[in-house]
């Protein structure tokens, strides 16, 4: 009996792995493809904010977004960063005041950071694990259809988790990564990983010389 189960597992496991590999390849290919159908309702957006100029750039994008197409909006920032969410809250409040539809379509959430500045490497293994689990929890809860991020460290685990859900067939999201304007010659670590791993559906840079270095990136002008 035990042997039978083992034999069965030996047969089934490779099949499962093969299926997963095929699915993985399909998701990789499909991720870069533009959608052929026009969405019928608003898309659930996950917007990743971050200190050090990231939020200002991201809010410029949010301002330009068509609010009826990109709704509801979930803003996420690091737990230690209260300023960023405040800025987003002020903006969303101004939308309500200026007479846009008054529905509760903005949500604000905080996420654990994988590593604080100056934290030791040994403890950061544990905190990275915690941050990734938290990111997974957030992505499962939000089930975003669109993800906007521009480089704070918190965006990497979120994008990876969203990608894993895509591979597992538990939800589909389009990931847009817009590299920060502060990056003129080199990509940030988050940007480099998302570019190399092809997790981002579309990858934007804000300087033409960076686009020449990373040909799969788009250059569509500066945000600031």
């Amino acid at each position, binding site marked *: 009996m035990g042997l039978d189960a083992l034999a069965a597992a030996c047969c089934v496991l490779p099949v499962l792995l093969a299926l997963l590999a095929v699915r993985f390849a399909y998701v990789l290919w499909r991720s870069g493809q*533009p*959608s052929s159908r026009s969405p019928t309702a608003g898309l659930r957006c996950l917007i990743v904010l971050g200190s050090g*100029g990231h939020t*200002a750039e991201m809010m*410029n994008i949010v301002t330009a977004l068509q609010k009826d197409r990109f709704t509801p909006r979930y803003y996420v920032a690091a737990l230690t960063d209260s300023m960023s969410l405040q800025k987003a809250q002020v903006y969303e409040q101004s939308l309500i005041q200026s007479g846009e539809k008054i529905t509760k379509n903005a949500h604000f959430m905080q996420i654990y950071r994988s590593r604080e500045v100056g934290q030791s490497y040994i403890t950061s293994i544990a905190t990275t694990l915690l941050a990734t689990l938290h990111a997974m929890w957030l992505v499962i809860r939000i089930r975003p259809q669109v993800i906007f991020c521009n480089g704070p460290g918190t965006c990497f685990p979120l994008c990876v988790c969203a990608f894993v859900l895509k591979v597992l067939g538990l939800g589909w999201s389009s990931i847009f990564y817009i590299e920060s304007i*502060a990056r003129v010659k080199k990509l940030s670590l988050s940007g480099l990983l998302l570019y190399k791993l092809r997790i981002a559906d579309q990858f934007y840079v804000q300087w033409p010389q960076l686009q020449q270095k990373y040909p799969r990136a788009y250059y569509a002008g500066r*945000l600031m």
Partner: protein
Amino acid sequence: MGEPMSWEPMPVVWIRTSCFSGAAADVFYIRAVVNFFSLSRARGQLARGWLIDSPPAQGLSRSGPQVHLRFLNLSLLSDSLLPCSSFPGGDDSASGGAICPVFAQPFASDERILQMADRERRTVFVTVGTTCFDSLVMAVDSPEVKKALLQKGYTDLLIQMGRGTYVPAKVSGDATLQVDHFMFSPSIADNMRTASLVISHAGSGSIFETLRLGKPLIVVVNEDLMDNHQSELAEELAERKHLFCAHPQTLGETIQAMDLGTLVPYVPGDAEPVVTVINKFLGFPVD
């Protein structure tokens, strides 16, 4: 004289001083007031008392108005009121600089005020944001840099020192460069607006805020930072002649050598093209 600070809906003229603050605010404010009176007099009118700053709810400015309104004796009466638009620069983003040249002859009601108003202030605002950048604060506090600033005609040096530990000495007095400092302020934007020159750390927030205000800017790169990608942005913008880029040791030379006329105004970017491509990708119809 009555208490001038009431916020009754009784518009005389709005002089928004919310964009002025710090040491320069007093002078700008007095200028605005003096010029307002001279304008009224030139038109054969007497201004009615209330000069209104932003109502308190909108964040009344910190130092100036109350104090100065008192010794300006504003309870003069007039029979006609000036609308906002008749006062150049009195509407919306009034810049103290823009108001002044319009009226050459201020209303000589108070010699002391006129003396203050006549002194041309040119402030250099130094900001390190939320960082700790002692080498920059030390550099601007050095005799070499101060001398260079004086030579260039600057009169005030205001330093936002953030989390730094080096505290420059405050200097006041007419003869030399006046130095003042503070750690943090919620109204750094105001300091930038009143400044004639901004010296900033290389954070993208400070850089673009200053460029949007159209102020001459020297960015000083912090070499002590480990991952110094910030210098990339400053160097690129310096190459495009939107600002000057310096290091703490070279700040003095940069100030001496700088020619503000060579700076090219920065045209702010636009998120619209990116959003258009994103819309297309998601299958939304193009507007």
